[in-house]
C-alpha cells in the first residue's frame, strides 16, 4: 500500500519536532565553557585581563605582579579562597619543528672497494632536520602565603624531564603599607620590562632575546646573562597605578647556579627605573632604563670544580662587566604595540680573553695560574637593539615580529675582524587561542626564526640558522 504524501508530511513533522525538542534541551543544558590557570582561577579574571597574549603581561598584569600577585582587594590572602583551590599551573608545548643550520662539519664517504663505504674526509654543508618534539615542562606555583607575603616556585624541566629550580622566591610586599617598598629574596627573573620568561616565541634562537645573553666570541663571562634567573635580593617599588617603577637587586655572580659554586664571593647589581605616561586613546607609553653591573669570578677558589674536574686555578680573581640600556613600551591604540630594548655591553679584558668560562669544568689555557694578557688585548664592547612589534587582532590572536641586531664596537683581541660575532636575527609568528577564559590557556603557535652571525662558521665565514616551528602551547 502506498503511503499518501500527506501521511509522509505528518511523519516528517512528528520526527522533526522530536529532534527540535532534543536539540533545544541539549543546548539549554550545555554547561558554561570554563577552563583555568592559577591566578585567573583565583580571581575570576580571564587570562586576557593580565596578559596581552599569554604569557606576555599587559599593563594590568605587570601591576598585579608588582603588587606581589595581589589585586589589593583585601581578598588576596589564601584564607579567602576555597580550601580546594591550589595555586598550581603547568605548561608544556608539543611541537613539530625544522631546524636548518648552514656550514656544519659532516663526514664525507667513499667506497671501500668491498661494497661498503668509508669516511674519506669532512666538509661543511647545510644540515636540516625536522620532526616532532616536546618542550620542557614548567610547573608553576605562586601567589600569596598571607596578605602582602607572596611567593613563587617554578620547578622546570628540559624535554628530557631533568628538573631544576628556575624560580624560588619569597617576597614581602607593600612594607610599611607602601607600594614603594617590596623585598624579594631567592632565585628570580631580573626585573626586565620585556620579560624573556614571558616571551611570545618558542624557537631555539627566537625563544630568547639575544641581547639578554650575548657574549662576544671567545668571551668567558657567563655571568652577565640578563635573561637567566639569578640568585639574590631585590628591592622594588612602584606608584599605586604602576606608572612609576624602580628596582635594585643585589645578586650573587653565579648565573643562578646553586650551592655557592666557584667558591668566589662576587656580586652584581641590576637596577631599573621606568616611567609610564597616559597618552589618551593611544594608551599608556613607558620608557625606562636598566643597568646590570658587577664583578664575576674568573677562577675557582679550589682546585676541583663541582663536577669533579680538576681545574687549575687562575690568579686573576673577580673581574668587572656591565650591560646598560633603555627600554620602551609603546602602544598605538588597542591593536598595535612596539617593544624596544637597547644595550651597550662591556666585559673586562680578562673575560674578553676567555677567562671565566669554566662552567663546563674544562681547564683551558686561559685559566692557568700566572697567565698574562696578550699584548694589545682590550675590553670587548658592543651595542645592540631589539625591536618587537605586535598586532593584536583580539585577545585571542596576536601577530608577532622581532628584529635584533648586535654589533661589536671593540674586539678583545687585536687583529680580529671588527664584525666578528655580530648577530642579526628576525622572528615572525602568530599565536591563536581558540578560547579565552579564566580556566586554561591553549595557543596554536606558528613561528619562523632566522639568525645570522658573522665569522662564526667553522671555516671563519658567516653562519645562518633558521627554524620553523608549529605546535600546541598549553597550560592549565
Amino acid at each position, binding site marked *: 500500500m502506498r503511503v499518501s504524501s500527506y501521511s509522509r508530511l*505528518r*511523519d516528517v*513533522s*512528528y520526527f*522533526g*519536532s*522530536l529532534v*527540535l*525538542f532534543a536539540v*533545544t*534541551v541539549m*543546548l*539549554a543544558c550545555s554547561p*558554561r*565553557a*570554563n577552563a583555568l590557570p592559577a591566578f585567573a582561577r583565583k*580571581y*575570576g*579574571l*580571564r587570562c*586576557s*585581563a593580565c596578559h596581552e597574549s599569554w604569557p606576555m603581561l599587559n*599593563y*594590568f598584569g605587570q*601591576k598585579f605582579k608588582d603588587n606581589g600577585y595581589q*589585586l*589589593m*582587594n*583585601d*581578598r588576596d590572602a589564601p584564607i579567602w579562597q576555597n580550601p580546594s583551590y591550589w595555586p598550581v599551573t603547568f605548561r608544556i608545548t608539543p611541537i613539530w619543528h625544522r631546524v636548518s643550520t648552514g656550514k656544519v662539519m659532516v663526514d664525507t664517504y667513499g667506497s671501500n672497494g668491498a661494497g661498503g663505504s668509508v669516511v674519506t674526509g669532512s666538509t661543511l654543508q647545510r644540515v636540516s632536520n625536522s620532526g616532532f618534539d616536546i618542550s620542557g615542562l614548567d610547573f608553576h606555583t605562586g601567589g600569596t602565603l598571607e596578605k602582602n607575603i607572596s611567593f613563587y616556585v617554578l620547578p622546570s624541566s628540559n624535554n628530557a624531564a631533568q628538573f631544576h629550580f628556575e624560580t624560588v622566591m619569597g617576597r614581602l610586599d607593600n612594607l610599611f603599607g607602601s607600594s614603594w617598598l617590596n623585598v624579594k629574596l631567592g632565585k628570580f627573573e631580573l626585573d626586565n620590562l620585556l620579560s624573556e620568561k614571558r616571551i611570545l616565541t618558542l624557537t631555539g634562537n627566537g625563544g630568547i632575546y639575544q641581547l639578554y645573553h650575548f657574549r662576544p666570541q671567545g668571551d668567558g663571562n657567563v655571568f652577565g646573562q640578563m635573561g637567566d634567573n639569578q640568585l639574590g635580593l631585590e628591592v622594588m617599588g612602584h606608584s*599605586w*597605578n*604602576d606608572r612609576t617603577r624602580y628596582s635594585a637587586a643585589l645578586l650573587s655572580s653565579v648565573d643562578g647556579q646553586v650551592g655557592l659554586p666557584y667558591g668566589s664571593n662576587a656580586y652584581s647589581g641590576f637596577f631599573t627605573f621606568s616611567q609610564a605616561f*597616559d*597618552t*589618551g*586613546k593611544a*594608551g*599608556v607609553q613607558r620608557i625606562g632604563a636598566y643597568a646590570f653591573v658587577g664583578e664575576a669570578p674568573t677562577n675557582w677558589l679550589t682546585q676541583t670544580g663541582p663536577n669533579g674536574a680538576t681545574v687549575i686555578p687562575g690568579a686573576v680573581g673577580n673581574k668587572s662587566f656591565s650591560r646598560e640600556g633603555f627600554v620602551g613600551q609603546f602602544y598605538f591604540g*588597542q*591593536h598595535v604595540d612596539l617593544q624596544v630594548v637597547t644595550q651597550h655591553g662591556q666585559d673586562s679584558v680578562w673575560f674578553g680573553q676567555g677567562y671565566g668560562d669554566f662552567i663546563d669544568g674544562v681547564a683551558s689555557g686561559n685559566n692557568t695560574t700566572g697567565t698574562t694578557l696578550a699584548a694589545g688585548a682590550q675590553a670587548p664592547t658592543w651595542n645592540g637593539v631589539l625591536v618587537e612589534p605586535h598586532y593584536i587582532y*583580539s*585577545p585571542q590572536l596576536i601577530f608577532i615580529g622581532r628584529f635584533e641586531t648586535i654589533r661589536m664596537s671593540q674586539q678583545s683581541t687585536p687583529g680580529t675582524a671588527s664584525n666578528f660575532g655580530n648577530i642579526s636575527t628576525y622572528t615572525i609568528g602568530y599565536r591563536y587561542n581558540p578560547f579565552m*577564559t*579564566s580556566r586554561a590557556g591553549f595557543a596554536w603557535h606558528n613561528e619562523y626564526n632566522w639568525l645570522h652571525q658573522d665569522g662564526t662558521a667553522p671555516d671563519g665565514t658567516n653562519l645562518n640558522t633558521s627554524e620553523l616551528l608549529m605546535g600546541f602551547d598549553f597550560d592549565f
Partner: protein
Amino acid sequence: MQRNNLRKWSSVFGAAAVVAFAMPSSAQQTKYDFETRMNIESHVGNITGHAKDAKPDYRRYCVGCHGELGDGNGENFPWVDPKPRNFQLGVFKCRSTPTGTLPTDQDLFDSIGRGFDRSNMPQWSTFTKQERTDLVAWVKHFSPRWVGEKPGTPITIPPEPEVTPERIKAGREVFARVQCWKCHGVLGQGDGPSAATLTDDLGRPIAPFNFAEGARPKCGDTDKDIYRIFMTGLDGTPMPSFADNIKPDEAWDLVFYLRTLMSQHSKEKAMAKQLGLKPVDPNAPAGQQ
C-alpha cells in the same frame, strides 16, 4: 487515532519547549538593543568617552564576570561573591546622586578606578583616563535607563568640620537614633539583629558592612566617601539613603563616630578611647544613650 494524537501532542510539546527555553532570553535585552545605544557618550572632566571604542577593553577585562550582555552572567558568575553587577538594570551602589537616580559619569569612572574591596572587582587604575571614560560609556549602553533619564544632581556635601569629642558623642547619638546598629551591630561588626535577614534587590543574601574588619568601604574610604554613602544610600541593597533623617551637620558627626568603629588607627578612635566611649545601648530610651 491514538497514533495521530501522539504525533499532534509531540509537535506541540516540541514547539513549547523551544519557546519555554527561549523565553528567559527574550525577557532580557539582546545585542540588537545594545547596538541601538552604541552612540552613547560619557563625559568626565574634559574627556568624552565613546561606547564603541571600549568594546575591545570590555571583552579583554570585564566580560568574564559581567558577561557579554552586561547582565552579570559572565562565566565566573557561579564562583564569585558578591555577584558581578548587572549593568542592564541601571542600578548602582556608588553614586554622588540621590537614591533612585542614575550616577554621574564621574561616579562610574571613579568606581572603575577604585575597584570594590572584598569583591572580585579590581582597581582598574592602569587604564588611561580616555580608556576608562570609554568604558563608562560602554557600561551605560547596556541599560535603556540612560536613554530617557538623566543622572541625578550630586548631593551637596558641606565642608568637613574639625573632629571634636563632642562631635563623636553626637555621632554616637545619630548611630543610635537612626538605628544603624540594627544591621551593622552595636560594635559595627555587621552582626546586628537584622543582618541575617538582609537581601539585595535581586533577592540574594547580602551582609551589612563590617566596620571592624579592616576592609575599606566599597564606595571609597575618605570621610567624604563615607558621608556620601549613607546620604545617598547604596541602591540595589538594603542600605537606604538617610538624607531625610540626618541633617548635614549631623552627618559629619556620624562619619566621625563610624571611624571609631573601624580597626584602622584614627584620631577619632584615639579620642573615643580617651572618652571611654561605650557602644550604643539598643535598649536605652530615645535620647538617653
